[in-house]
């Protein structure tokens, strides 16, 4: 009995003494909104939790300067330099020498790069194989040279050999030795941090790579914790158990975090654009005037205010702002309620129309659609919302079941991706080549296709501009606003760069990242 009492007393004392200690200054603890990170293979994982972490372990041949988003900031990573032929079909990369794979798997050479790209292009081993459809061959003329030959020029070869999705370079020996499943449990790359441990539902632990080619990281460890509950993540951050965390896309969250001492909140890119796709194959939306009436009825500024001034911004075109090729001054329909009503009457609907939207129950996306519903109501347009759970939403909108689809997405920041996935007739839902063209838009196919293989940059930009104008004029979709990615971190954490954006959706943690106190 006495013994039990002692044990309990000791446990209590331990609990009290061991209460949240200050984080060790070389260990970075990050909180992510998920129960798990999924497969840890960079060629298979496309989810936010996985991508945010995998970027700390892997390099590409090239990378976008940390903290930036636009491809204009492309800089060397595993490749020191590169050249391309004038027709854009042949690319040669010179690799850095002496780069070491994690866990003693040897030097990273052109053989590893060739293997990685073949692996990324193979649909058995990669979720991103379609990005590499234009690849003809990848060769290694010598130990430090990689030569890529394309069947046809593509808008950005560099975008698919950077440290993002299939462009992550894996170490051949490790991938072969561990096998597909083994590699997904123990990923081996060349990045500043090495995988050490994965505890399901709890955390992944990464440790510093002492042989990192840019220098030994200043942090010794990253503890990547999976905390699905928003409130618990906030409380853990507040109690000092987390140094950095993914935030909520809510203005109130930003205000609350900004009120805490020693906290930095960043609203970073890539922004996810909220767009209403109008199904032009169905009445009444097959009528251009009805679509225009909807476009005129939407007040972008009102929605911007509603969603939060610090976390969103009004859309500028049918391609998000800041992408290579976005027409930043695209001729969007301005808010004009009278014009909206007049157009409806002209279209033969003086008493208004009713359209249906299957919508996800994800709170931020649902509240957006509800706000839109209120705006449309003023013009006499009834938007009937049918809320369904998120996975169901994704399935049903691809079955062409919704007249209006509110889709919120960020893509690789080149106009081509948004245009071909949302507005090219090849991508129309329910076709064998379907992606996310919910509106059945087909008005700019010629421009989108021509821009893809256009090597003259000015002509390419002009083609993309025309495509955007045509899509806007036809009202295939109404771009409304863009939501930023929110992260909070202690201001004693010096990331080592200015965080404005991260294509991998989590802040890059570099060899220079450190705590200042």
């Amino acid at each position, binding site marked *: 009995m006495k013994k039990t009492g002692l*044990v309990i007393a*000791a*446990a*209590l*004392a*331990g*609990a*009290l*003494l*061991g*209460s*949240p200690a200050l984080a060790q200054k070389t260990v970075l603890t990050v909180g992510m909104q*998920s*129960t*798990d990170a*999924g*497969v840890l293979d960079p060629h298979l994982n*496309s*989810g936010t939790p996985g991508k945010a972490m995998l970027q700390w372990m892997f390099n590409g041949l090239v990378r976008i300067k940390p903290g930036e988003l636009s491809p204009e900031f492309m800089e060397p990573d595993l490749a020191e330099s590169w050249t391309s032929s004038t027709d854009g079909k042949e690319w040669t990369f010179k690799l850095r020498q002496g780069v070491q794979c994690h866990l003693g798997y040897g030097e990273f050479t052109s053989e590893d790069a060739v293997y990685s790209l073949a692996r990324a292009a193979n*649909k058995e081993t990669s*979720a991103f*194989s*379609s990005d590499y459809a234009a690849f003809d061959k990848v060769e290694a003329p010598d130990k430090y040279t990689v030569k890529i030959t394309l069947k046809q020029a593509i808008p950005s070869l560099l975008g698919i050999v950077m440290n993002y999705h299939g462009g992550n370079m894996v170490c051949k020996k490790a991938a072969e030795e561990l096998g597909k*499943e083994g590699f*997904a*449990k123990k990923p081996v790359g060349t990045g500043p941090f090495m995988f050490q441990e994965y*505890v*399901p*539902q709890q955390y992944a632990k990464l440790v510093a790579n002492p042989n990192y080619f840019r220098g030994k990281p200043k942090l010794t460890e990253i503890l990547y*914790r*999976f*905390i*699905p*509950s928003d*409130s*618990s993540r906030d*409380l*853990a951050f*507040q*109690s000092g*158990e*987390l140094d950095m965390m993914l935030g909520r896309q809510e203005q109130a969250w930003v205000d609350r975090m900004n009120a805490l001492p020693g906290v930095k909140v960043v609203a970073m890119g890539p922004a996810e654009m909220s767009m209403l796709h109008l199904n032009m194959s169905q009445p009444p939306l097959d009528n251009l005037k009805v679509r225009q009436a909807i476009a005129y009825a939407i007040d972008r500024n009102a929605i911007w205010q509603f969603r939060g001034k610090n976390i969103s911004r009004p859309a500028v075109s049918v391609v998000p702002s800041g992408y290579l090729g976005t027409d930043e001054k695209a001729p969007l329909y301005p808010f004009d309620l009278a014009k909206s009503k007049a157009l409806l009457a002209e279209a033969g609907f003086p008493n208004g129309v009713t359209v249906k939207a299957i919508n996800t129950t994800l709170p931020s996306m649902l509240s957006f659609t509800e706000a839109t519903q209120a705006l449309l109501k003023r013009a006499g347009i009834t938007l009937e919302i049918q809320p*369904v*759970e*998120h*996975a*169901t939403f*994704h*399935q*049903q909108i*691809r079955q062409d079941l919704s007249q209006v689809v509110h889709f919120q*997405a960020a*893509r690789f920041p080149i106009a081509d991706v948004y245009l071909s996935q949302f507005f090219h007739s090849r*991508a129309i839902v329910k*076709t*064998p*080549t*379907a*992606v*996310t063209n919910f509106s059945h838009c087909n008005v700019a196919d010629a421009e989108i296709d021509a821009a893809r293989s256009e090597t003259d940059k000015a002509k390419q930009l002009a083609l993309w501009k025309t495509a955007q104008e045509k899509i806007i004029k036809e009202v295939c979709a109404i771009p409304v606003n863009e939501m930023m990615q929110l992260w909070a971190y202690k201001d004693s954490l010096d990331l080592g760069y200015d965080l404005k954006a991260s294509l991998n959706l989590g802040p890059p943690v570099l060899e220079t990242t450190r705590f200042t106190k």
Partner: protein
Amino acid sequence: MGAFLVKRLGFAVVTLWAVLSLVFVVVRIVPGDPAQVILGDQADATAIAAMRTRLGLDAPLIEQYWTFLTGAIRGDWGVSLVTGRPVIQEILSVLPWTLELTVVSMLIGVAIGVPLGVWAAINRNRMPDYVTRIASLLGLSFPPFVSAIILLILFAIMLRWFPVISARSGSASAWFQSMALPALNLGLIMAAYITRVARSAMLEVMQEDYVRSARAKGVPWRVVVWRHALRNALIPVITVVGLYLGILIGNSVLTEIVFNRPGLGKLIVGALNQRDYTMLQGMMVIYTLIVVLVNIATDLTYAFVDPRVKLS
């Protein structure tokens, strides 16, 4: 006793089969495509179709059912569609966390609920009774995720006695830290249920002839209450404990999410969101198994507490 067990276990097998079949059907009726979830927004229709083939989701339903059932019998529950790890391995890695939380919560519930219920009953319509009834009503009305947040704010943020993120490294203090708040959260809800049942059972038993005769014979009040009456009042309490185990496991889903403890609850939420069919099937087997086994254990406990109960 032997015949009872054989009969109950046979019944358990049939229940398991029925639940498995039901789950198989339900999981496939629910809209949402796992291939789409795995590949993400940007995948084209061809890639999604290829993934469906790879996952075996394009095979005829009856074939999928047969593969699933024969696999389940062999103990092979397949691999998670999302993580690629074996379902059984994923479940077993977190099962102890949920079981441990459930057992400790139940002990807290019994330790608080039974004495409180008895105290309320023997003080019927007096202050202790009112206080207890109001407290148990409060306990029942609080959604577990709200009480969880309150506990966190109080003990983790204001008093800083416990961490927000449950963690455990093998030491007694680490175990205590990871267990205390979640177990208290669930234990209090359980206590609220048990208090009410214990109170009404005690009230009923106290009306019985044998209690009156014991009192008439001059048996001390304490002995009447604790030895004669409580023993009989415990039977409905045990039933409730057994029945509410299901509720406890259900509430543990929310508790695990808020306290960020690993467990079946967290696993099932992830599996549902991602339409991880194989994982959901495996989870349902485990849940059914637990409920069936607890029912058998409850029956056995009756016989132990009350020798008049015959197991046949």
